[in-house]
């Protein structure tokens, strides 16, 4: 009972000056305490167990520290290096143990506020003091640091800072003042003639005491046995990027992030490869303990840290949702300090970094004749001189012949990118809070897109009574995204390529103001991409989201606690679309179309959690039991209607009103148990089991169990290692577990009837919804995909963790992969497949993270390199020779599939024909395997007859490569010198292939559209030394079919970020701003400054756009932008 009070005051006093990780560390240290502390002031009554075998004084102190609630501070240089101690203490007062350890060392100790200060015994013959030095010690955020030990090197003077970080110590000029504090970098200052010394201490990175958040709790990094990577708030906010995923790109070995889409669109995130064919490979996101579904609209500035749980032993605590790994986000919390205000702001511009070469008007005329002329097609009416020299529209002076539209210039733009975040935090021993407000805006780099977001957060925690705390995290956000909408494979960039250079973008004489191609006169019908984007693409996606949790925490005893959490994720999305009455001469609409969509999602989470944490002798046990339910409800209303004019954009008086609504519900109930056991800080064991019950499965298949176990060995704690000073950390760990994934919707086992879902206009009368059908089969046997995962890792730290290495090998296999087994067309189900647990897939790979951290001296730097590899192999599909083909599209490969998924190959490998040069003569055609009967001519591509049957047909296709990189890598270099700091962040992928489908549009020459300049080099009898086949409309030899011709290396190395920052010196701040501002940093940054790649498209970072199994196919996707920004960080 007294302990509770003591323990409370300890926590509060610690968090007063430390950032959250330290608070958690202290929390944990307190938990590790054995037995009960009766009075903190009386360390004689604290009893400990300790076993020293040939221990140095330092290691003995470290062991003691880990066994009690005190933090030891000492100057390691003053400790005797040679003295060794061999002794055992069982339930002895801490004071006695300390006396024994410090015997004959010239050191003594004092206890102060839960700190034990180890100090030299004051010398009787102290030097005569001439000066008194005073000053204030603060952390890098400007918060005063209490309890910093300040002593004079080689002398006896010592003191600690008070609660305001203030100290006073007698010292002479020439004395070296040393400032030390656990968790912070030591600093030495030589006293000159000054009497005031103010300084900042920076936190130690990757210190041994670092605590990481794991599912349903936290753990010391040194005790981890699973594959967990942490990313600090500093790294997350180092890049001026819109979302968490982009901030994580290249930061974690094994975590692959691919940008995919315009402003507000979510990137693709994969941890250790692709785990599911049917389901998404997105990890499971948990924010402050509450599953988040997605990371959309989240403000990076609120992040305290991010943990990535990569293997089964770390993630399996999340059981049926853990196969793709787990990303845990902890948001910032208030500290026990005076009010702190922080402003984080950046503003920049973005632009595309590359253009492709397209034909101009005169080149287009040449190309048209080549293409159509070879096919015997006459000149399109517009291109005949009489028409071509007409004004582009009535009243214009410019003719078509004089027009030369650069559609890329018209479509691409530079856009604003800005983020502002202001936060306020503080607290006292009863209540603490962190609140922030943010605004983000991104215009994007193409016309018609944009995203902005406003958000507000308040996190607080309150001590209600002894051992009872209540806290809440609340996030409110509103965002507005103008999105590209669904365009299928004919993306706007495809139409940018295809648009005719002699047509203007705009035409003031048309209704709507845009000009479209007219097939009847232009002989070509690209749609105007600007009109599509701006006039017709008015799709605004407004999201409001409330995400938060409230919890009650009961601390019964020092080792037993209970927490009850209620979480809520509520979001409302409204999508309003308006397509007006318009007429661009090629296309038109005589009525306006309004579409309104509203989605509501509510997820309620209840978590009841019991935690036991106890050390008995050398045994440390941490046991967690959880009961949890998650209830998800969603509803959706889609409506559309027409208006005769553009004046009314609502359904008032609209015609053809149609409305469809749907509701869904899912329920998950879970029982979780986890045991972490440590023996003598050396041998680590962790075992977890989760049993989940889920409403989406048929009765009888609702429950499944997901176990995991892992072990670790901290070799550096062994006696035979202790004398090797260079090795500060060496740990081996291995884990195995089973995780799950529900890769189907909430009702996949049910065969549903689409009642009144179609219309047939009997009697020439529209009776909407008079037809009912179904086209699916249910499967009552469906269950979670279960993945067995093995992880083996080694952590190495050298020279007090100056050099760190973490290497891991993993393999994971799913044997009951859910596939939508394709139904033959003769089933009459429109090929809709049946979900069944039939496939098997294997992933294996290595993750390496290598770091060098130089934090002493004026020039500080930090280098971190990451390499990760993934090998993916499909082991089985629904039948031995089953295939899953994807990407077949007449526009991008003559209708042949682009990828094939088949047992024995990586998922969705590129699949197609192999080219073998160009036929130079009819003889060559005649002597070669039959390509296309009667159609092949000189100038056509020769495709290889892979099965040697003399005929080129679909059997002559083969596997051409994979979109999966051989490895991903990144290198982060950050450095600071005096007040300057800089960082360079390189990121790359190597060994992947891209199917450049956009190049099929540029060079495929299937029919008349504008094209890339490469077509000017097409084969002709007089231009034979080329790799571009003859131009002939209709592509009779199907030269454009899916083949290695369109595959390119996707390797790239990108200067992801370059930042240069300057901290305004303290002295200037106090001079000019009278200390009202404690720190002020300005920086300039560039994102994607330079990309080194041989890829010919706009950007090599290709996600997927056309459904699943077409990743790595570039349909002309929104390219990653290059940005330049300036930023400001202010602390008050």
């Amino acid at each position: 009972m007294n302990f509770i009070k003591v323990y409370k005051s300890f926590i509060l006093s610690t968090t007063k000056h430390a950032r959250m990780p330290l608070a958690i560390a202290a929390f944990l240290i307190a938990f590790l305490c054995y037995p009960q502390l009766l009075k903190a002031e009386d360390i004689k009554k604290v009893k400990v167990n300790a076993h020293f075998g040939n221990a140095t004084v330092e290691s003995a102190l470290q062991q003691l520290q880990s066994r009690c609630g005190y933090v030891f501070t000492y100057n390691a240089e003053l400790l005797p290096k040679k003295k060794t101690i061999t002794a055992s203490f069982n339930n002895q007062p801490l004071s006695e143990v300390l006396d024994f350890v410090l015997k004959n060392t010239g050191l003594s100790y004092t206890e102060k506020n839960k700190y034990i200060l180890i100090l030299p015994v004051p010398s009787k013959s102290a030097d005569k003091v001439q000066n008194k030095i005073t000053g204030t010690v603060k952390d890098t955020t400007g918060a005063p640091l209490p309890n910093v030990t300040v002593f004079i090197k080689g002398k006896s003077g010592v003191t600690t800072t008070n609660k305001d970080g203030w100290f006073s110590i007698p010292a002479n000029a020439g004395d070296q003042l040393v400032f030390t504090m656990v968790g912070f970098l030591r600093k030495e200052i030589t006293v000159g003639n000054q009497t005031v010394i103010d300084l900042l201490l920076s936190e130690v990175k990757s210190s041994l005491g670092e605590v990481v958040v794991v599912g349903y709790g936290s753990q010391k990094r040194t005790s981890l046995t699973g594959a967990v990577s942490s990313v600090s708030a500093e790294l997350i906010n180092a890049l001026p990027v819109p979302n968490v995923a982009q901030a994580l790109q290249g930061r974690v070995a094994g975590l692959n992030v691919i940008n995919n889409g315009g402003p507000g669109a979510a990137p693709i995130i994969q941890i250790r490869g692709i785990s599911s064919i049917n389901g998404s490979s997105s990890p499971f996101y948990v924010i402050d303990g509450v599953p988040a579904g997605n990371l959309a609209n989240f403000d990076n500035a609120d992040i305290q840290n991010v943990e990535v749980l990569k293997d089964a032993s770390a993630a399996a605590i999340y059981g049926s949702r853990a196969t793709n790994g787990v990303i845990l986000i902890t948001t910032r919390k208030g500290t026990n300090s005076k009010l702190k205000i922080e402003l984080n702001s950046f503003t920049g511009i973005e632009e595309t970094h590359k253009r492709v070469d397209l034909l101009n008007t005169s080149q287009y005329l040449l190309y048209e004749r080549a293409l159509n002329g070879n096919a015997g097609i006459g000149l399109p009416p517009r291109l005949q001189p009489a028409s071509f020299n007409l004004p582009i529209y009535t009243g214009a002076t410019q003719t078509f012949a004089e027009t030369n539209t650069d559609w890329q210039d018209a479509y691409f733009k530079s856009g604003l990118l800005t983020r502002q975040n202001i936060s306020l935090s503080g607290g006292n021993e009863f209540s603490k809070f962190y609140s922030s407000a943010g605004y983000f805006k991104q215009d994007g780099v193409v016309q018609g897109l944009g995203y902005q977001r406003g958000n507000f957060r308040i996190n607080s925690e309150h001590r209600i009574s002894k051992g009872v705390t209540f806290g809440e995290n609340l996030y409110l956000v509103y965002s507005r995204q103008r999105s590209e909408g669904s365009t299928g494979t004919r993306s706007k960039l495809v139409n940018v390529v295809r648009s005719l250079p002699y047509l203007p973008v705009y035409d003031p004489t048309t209704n709507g103001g845009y000009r479209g191609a007219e097939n009847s006169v232009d002989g070509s019908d690209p749609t105007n991409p600007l009109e599509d984007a701006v006039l017709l693409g008015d799709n605004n996606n407004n999201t409001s989201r409330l995400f938060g949790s409230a919890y009650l925490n009961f601390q019964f005893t020092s080792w037993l606690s209970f927490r009850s959490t209620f979480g809520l994720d509520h979001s409302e999305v409204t999508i309003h679309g308006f397509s007006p009455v318009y007429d661009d001469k090629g296309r038109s609409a005589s009525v306006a179309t309004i579409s309104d969509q509203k989605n509501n999602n509510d997820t309620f989470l209840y978590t009841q959690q019991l935690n036991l944490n106890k050390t008995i002798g050398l045994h440390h046990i941490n046991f967690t039991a959880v009961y949890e339910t998650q209830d998800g409800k969603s509803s959706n209303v889609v409506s559309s209607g027409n208006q005769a004019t553009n004046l009314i954009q609502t359904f008032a008086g609209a015609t053809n009103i149609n409305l469809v609504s749907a509701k869904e519900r899912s329920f998950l109930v879970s029982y979780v148990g986890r045991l972490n056991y440590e023996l003598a800080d050396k041998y680590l064991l962790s075992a977890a089991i989760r049993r989940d019950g889920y409403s989406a499965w048929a009765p009888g298949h609702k429950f499944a169990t997901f176990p995991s176990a892992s072990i670790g060995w901290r070799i550096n704690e062994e006696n035979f290692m202790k004398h090797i000073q260079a090795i500060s950390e060496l740990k081996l760990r291995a884990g195995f577990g089973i995780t799950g994934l529900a890769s189907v919707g909430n009702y996949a086992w049910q065969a549903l009837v689409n009642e009144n879902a179609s219309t047939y206009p009997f009697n020439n009368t529209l009776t909407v919804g008079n037809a009912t059908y179904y086209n699916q089969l249910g499967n009552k046997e469906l269950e979670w995909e279960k993945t067995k995962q093995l992880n083996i890792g080694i952590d190495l730290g050298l020279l007090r963790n100056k050099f760190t290495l973490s290497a891991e090998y993993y393999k994971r296999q799913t044997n009951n992969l859910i596939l939508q087994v394709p139904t033959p067309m003769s089933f009459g189900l429109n090929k809709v497949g049946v979900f069944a647990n039939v496939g098997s897939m294997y992933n294996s790979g290595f993750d390496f993270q290598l770091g060098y951290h130089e934090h002493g001296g004026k020039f500080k730097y930090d280098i971190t390199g990451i390499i990760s590899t993934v090998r993916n192999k499909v082991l089985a599909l629904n039948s031995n020779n089953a295939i899953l083909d994807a990407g077949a599209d007449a526009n991008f490969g003559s209708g042949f599939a682009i990828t094939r998924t088949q047992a024995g190959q990586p998922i969705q490998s590129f699949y197609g024909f192999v080219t073998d040069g160009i036929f130079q003569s009819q003889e060559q055609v005649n002597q070669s395997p039959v390509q296309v009967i009667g159609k092949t001519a000189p100038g056509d591509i020769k495709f290889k007859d892979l099965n040697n049957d003399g005929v080129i047909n679909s059997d002559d296709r083969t596997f051409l490569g994979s979109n999966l990189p051989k490895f991903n890598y990144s290198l982060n270099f950050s450095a600071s010198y005096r007040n300057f700091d800089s960082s360079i962040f390189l990121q790359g992928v190597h060994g992947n292939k891209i199917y450049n489908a956009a190049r099929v549009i540029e060079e495929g020459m299937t029919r008349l559209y504008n094209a890339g300049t490469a077509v000017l080099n097409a084969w002709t009898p007089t231009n034979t030394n080329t790799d571009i086949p003859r131009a002939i409309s209709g592509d009779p030899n199907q030269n454009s079919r899916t083949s290695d011709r369109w595959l390119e290396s996707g390797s790239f190395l990108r200067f992801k970020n370059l930042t240069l920052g300057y901290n305004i010196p303290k002295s200037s701040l106090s001079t000019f701003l009278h200390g009202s501002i404690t720190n002020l940093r300005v920086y300039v940054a560039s994102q994607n400054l330079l990309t080194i790649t041989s890829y010919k498209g706009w950007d090599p970072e290709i996600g997927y756009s056309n459904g699943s199994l077409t990743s790595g196919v570039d349909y002309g996707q929104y390219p990653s932008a290059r940005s330049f920004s300036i930023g400001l960080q202010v602390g008050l």
Partner: protein
Amino acid sequence: MYFKKITLCLGLLTGLLFSCKKLDQLNPSYPTVETYYQTSAQLVGGTNSIYVSFHAGFLVGREWFYLNDLRSDEFAAGGGQLEVVRAQLLNGSALPSNTQMSTVWNGLYILIHRANSIISNAAKVQDNPALRDRCVAEAKCLRGWAYYNLVTLWGGVPIRLSPVDNIADYLPRSSTDKVYAQIIADLTEAATVLPASYTGADLGRVTKGAAQAILGKVYIQKGDYALAKAEFEKLSTSGLYALTDNYSDNFDEEHEFNRESVMEAIYFDKGDRKYDASFTGDGAATAQTTLRNQEYNPLSWRNLIPSDKYLNEFENTATGSAKTDPRLAASVYLTGDKYDSGNTAITDADQNGSASIINGKTIKAGWRKYNLIYKQAKAVATKTYYGGINQRVIRYGDIILLLAECENELGNTVSAVRYLNQIRSRPSVSMPVYPTANFPVNNKSDIIKALVHERMVELGAEEVRNFDLLRWRKKGYFSTDPLPYFRVNRDELLPIPQDEIANNPSIGAGDVVAQNPGY
């Protein structure tokens, strides 16, 4: 004091423990197959969905007319804009992977699945036996139409007569005889139950006459001329059907459901210039237009145009005929012809792509049948426009000519000529009756020539030529095959779609091997 806390915790726990009933969730938005098709109203809804497939983009709304037209010699490519998969069919290079072809196969089986779901579930419906039986008859009639298309285009196909309820329920191809037997059974049964006609809100459902007409077409395709004749005569003696005076009434929007129409696919223009983008026709708000208006539109996409052969088939004063066949102008627009209710002349510059040669003269030609530009001003006509003209899938004029063919094959030449002349004597056509100088009708083979001619000029672009070619080729009507690419033992049939072979492990396990010869 901890006791209170522990009680509170236990309370929190137990209050939430008993929630496992929530694990049983049925989709609140959709009924399941097991619980549906219980009432006649539900059965009617299900039956209506068969029609949705029938008129959807993958069948009559687009791919079905394309597939038949691309295998006919009445069509030529309008230019390079014709998509590759279609061009492959037109020039005889289609492979089993051809998506245009497989889309129709897919669409026909979707239609069959929907029909099966009615036929198999009907027994559960007791509230209105008459309506139930009509639904079953409609389903069987449309199922018969679908299998008739399948067997004609692909030969032996899997016969699926009940909805699939198990992923392993694969069926092999059956012999053409078995498919025909099934079609005949379905249509015979449908014809006995279906009403002769409908009124009001049911207008557009398949009738007794439609079932008989398809049955007749099945018989004639099999070469059973007597049986075919018997079915066709049921229409000609019913008193329900007649030729319209005006030939063009069969292709416009103003004279839908006229007396010549035997089976009609309905299209409806909501004015939003949208088409059935999914090609399944599904979705309550899906557009109800046909893409035909756009695909063949002389002023727009102009993907297919009339072949020179077709254009020159018409009797023309320029080539010495007594009268130029008025059906030429009713079927196609030539440069200079008036559209827009006679107000605007079509020019060469309006028509993108290839030109035609008629009687030695180069001129641009485009399809007029089923095209709305006959009444649209140029500003509208040149725009993307998906029309609402119903397609007459079977019209009585076709039946009359098939009767002529039956009679001729059965040796009744007088009757045959009488039927031919019935067509030529339509008031708006009034062509000189047979025999004419070019077409003597002295014997069976003379009449065959007249018949072949008459069917092309009367029924051009009405998706009958492909079926005619298949039938006549077998009977040896042609010394030279009308299709220039034709290869014996290959091009009689389309290839079984690659997709079907890949996903149906049993496809070749029955009467017929998996793939047709030559592919």
